[in-house]
């Protein structure tokens, strides 16, 4: 038999590589800007489009989906072709995939600063972009499975299994977490409300970490690390074992993001149990990677790519040990909502994802350009400044997290809160925030040096766009047994069938279950909890647009330190009309669930105009554009109708008269402000957001039926 001659597509790898570097620099630069805003709010450039609440999601989306996303595709397109001994299934699909993904990123860069957001963390993009993501993801899937099917190597190497798991799971997660009902082209409401929405979001959120930031990178580790060290993986058996263990366990760890919330206790405990179990398969991967280098540590001394791999794997090990620890309720009580979590995710992101990406780039770019790396010295400099950057980032953040977490819980011997003012704890950790941005700047410097180094490497070499390869075609299975052939052929495609059936089943489930689920579960369990008034609803959408949820939680945990500080702890029945939920995951400022009625309207007006007027030293930016911008009331009717569809009990035909109620309430607030000599027209956005803030958490005070 003659070997087949074919060519690997290196150009698509190169394109994804360029995109990785460019978006990486942009995403990290945005990260640096938001980090500085946390101690210097003026860094928002006095502009709503560059203010923390809107730009922080831009940072997370850019580094996760643009930087890491492109890096994943770069790694997969390079390794998959070589592991399957086949060119990518279709050059056209590769191109559509590449440009489609960049289009998604560009639309995120445009819409997020405009405040177009669903407010679901790491899934902020609005529904038209969600559809685009689905299409591009399917294109990627067809391209990948097509390549797998026409492979010339019978055995599917473990790395490819990780890629398959990534594709299948992200597809399901993305669809489930994007079930939203459009109000207009740029606005939608989540179909689920309150505690249910929270569960869906974190089921998605945690698995996005698992199947976007972890499994594809483990797959790449299993290909690139042995290649870099030129020795086989320590234990192939272990790699298979920990792959299956990892994907079976990961899926239900999400509820550990919702400990001490109104999520049922058993669901919380389930999340904790699964999270703790995850240590074993996670460390299986780390150990397998590090032990691959046993007896070859001298190579690590000389080879900068291996240095990056070692630190990356170590960071992975630390983050996956810390994760289960943080999911223990006692630890979570202190760590949750603080900078500790920021430190935790950045050890993973900067160490594991960042360093692995850099290692792969340094290894891969010279190869596809058939040359040597331009400067090993620069790469070495990148390694050290990057490592320093991680340390300067993580240590102050841990310090800040412990400090604030403990301060917020501290009582005096007399039994009153030692630091009743939240702001006092914020100001205590500002020096750590300064240090953190120094760490981030160091890390970014390294990346810029890398970009230059890789550029020079590319210029001195020449891209081998189509790299020749040859391999024996796969022999047909059991050619002698004619009856078995169809069976065998079917066996070779079960993944296809399974995915197709999965999609069909999922669509069916949605159609059948969703209306029942959402409407029946929206029956209020607390009689005094009423839907938002039209003005409050509009105010809530401004709250979402400005990304307030990025700094302010709306869920009071049942601790004495929290009920003393904020008020009555949260009840599940209070959130039944919250499409989407706005519990948040970080308290850069205080919790707002019981904010309603705490201060007068004029306090809120002045505070939004310039927070430092009411709270000297506050790091909250000015929201003065809310005073000048007119509230768009043309959308009220559509919003009410959408809410009605979701089961919110507005009376029939209310959409037509909603704006009358809105005007009346707005005039009332405007008149109340006039008493304090604040002149503001009732049609301004600030009136709506004040109405919403004043409503927050007041419903259960209205009736004595607060019994959940």
């Amino acid at each position: 038999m003659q070997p087949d001659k074919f060519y690997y597509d290196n150009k698509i790898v190169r394109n994804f590589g360029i995109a990785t570097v460019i978006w990486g620099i942009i995403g990290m630069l945005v990260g640096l800007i938001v980090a500085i805003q946390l101690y210097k709010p003026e860094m928002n450039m006095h502009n709503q489009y560059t203010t923390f609440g809107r730009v922080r999601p831009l940072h997370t989306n850019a580094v996760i989906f643009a930087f890491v996303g492109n890096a994943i595709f770069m790694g997969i397109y390079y390794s998959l072709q070589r592991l399957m001994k086949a060119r990518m299934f279709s050059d056209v699909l590769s191109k559509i995939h590449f440009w489609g993904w960049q289009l998604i990123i560009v639309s995120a860069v445009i819409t997020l600063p405009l405040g177009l957001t669903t407010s679901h963390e790491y899934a902020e993009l609005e529904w038209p972009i969600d559809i685009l993501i689905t299409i591009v993801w399917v294109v990627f899937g067809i391209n990948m499975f097509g390549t797998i099917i026409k492979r010339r190597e019978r055995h599917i190497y473990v790395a490819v299994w990780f890629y398959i798991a990534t594709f299948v799971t992200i597809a399901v997660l993305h669809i489930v977490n994007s079930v939203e009902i459009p109000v207009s082209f740029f606005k939608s409401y989540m179909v689920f409300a309150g505690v249910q929405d929270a569960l869906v979001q974190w089921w998605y959120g945690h698995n996005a970490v698992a199947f976007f930031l972890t499994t594809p990178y483990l797959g790449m580790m299993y290909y690139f690390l042995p290649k870099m060290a030129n020795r086989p993986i320590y234990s192939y058996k272990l790699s298979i074992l920990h792959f299956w263990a990892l994907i079976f366990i990961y899926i239900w760890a999400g509820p550990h993001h919702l400990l001490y919330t109104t999520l049922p206790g058993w669901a919380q405990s389930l999340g904790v149990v699964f999270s703790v179990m995850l240590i074993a398969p996670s460390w299986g991967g780390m150990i397998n990677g590090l032990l691959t280098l046993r007896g070859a540590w001298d190579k690590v001394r000389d080879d900068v790519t291996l240095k990056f791999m070692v630190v990356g794997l170590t960071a992975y090990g630390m983050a996956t040990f810390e994760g289960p620890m943080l999911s223990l309720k006692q630890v979570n009580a202190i760590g949750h909502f603080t900078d500790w979590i920021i430190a935790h995710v950045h050890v993973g992101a900067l160490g594991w994802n960042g360093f692995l990406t850099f290692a792969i780039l340094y290894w891969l770019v010279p190869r596809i350009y058939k040359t040597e790396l331009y400067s090993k010295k620069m790469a070495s400099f990148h390694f050290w400044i990057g490592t320093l950057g991680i340390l300067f980032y993580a240590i102050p953040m841990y310090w800040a997290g412990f400090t604030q977490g403990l301060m917020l819980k501290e009582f005096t011997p007399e039994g009153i809160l030692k630091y009743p003012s939240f702001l006092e704890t914020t100001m205590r950790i500002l020096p750590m925030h300064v240090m953190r941005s120094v760490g981030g700047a160091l890390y970014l410097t390294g990346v810029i040096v890398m970009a230059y180094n890789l550029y020079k490497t590319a210029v001195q070499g020449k891209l081998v766009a189509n790299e020749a390869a040859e391999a024996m075609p796969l022999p047909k299975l059991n050619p002698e047994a004619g009856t078995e052939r169809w069976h065998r052929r079917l066996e070779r495609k079960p993944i296809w069938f399974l995915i197709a059936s999965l999609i069909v089943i999922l669509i069916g489930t949605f159609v059948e279950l969703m209306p029942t689920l959402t409407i029946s579960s929206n029956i209020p369990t607390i009689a005094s909890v009423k839907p938002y008034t039209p003005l409050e609803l509009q105010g809530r959408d401004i709250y979402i647009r400005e990304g307030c949820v990025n700094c302010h939680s709306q869920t009071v945990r049942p601790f004495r330190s929290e009920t003393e500080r904020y008020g009555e702890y949260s009840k599940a029945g209070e959130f039944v009309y919250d499409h989407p939920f706005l519990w948040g995951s970080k308290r850069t400022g205080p919790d707002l669930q019981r904010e309603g009625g705490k201060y007068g309207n004029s306090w809120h007006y002045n505070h939004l105009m310039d927070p430092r007027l009411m709270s000297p030293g506050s790091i909250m930016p000015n929201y003065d554009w809310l005073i000048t911008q007119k509230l768009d009331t043309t959308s009220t009717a559509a919003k009410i109708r959408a809410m009605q569809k979701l089961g919110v009990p507005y009376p029939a035909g209310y959409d037509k008269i909603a704006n009358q109620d809105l005007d009346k309430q707005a005039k009332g607030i405007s008149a109340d402000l006039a008493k304090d000599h604040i002149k503001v027209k009732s049609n301004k956005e600030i009136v709506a957001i004040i109405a919403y803030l004043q409503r927050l958490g007041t419903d259960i005070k209205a009736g004595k039926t607060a019994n959940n």
Partner: protein
Amino acid sequence: MSIIYFLIGCSVLLALVFLGAFFWAQRNGQHDDLYTPSVRILLDDDPDENDSKK
């Protein structure tokens, strides 16, 4: 909290997909040889350096 049944359903469904994939891998002989594949990926067969298209 009916959503939890839906999510558990999705999770179980995914798990079943992976279980199916696992059984396929097992029956397909993917797990028969747990050493050679790790070495095989290290061998790059560069047929002809000059053969690559521009």
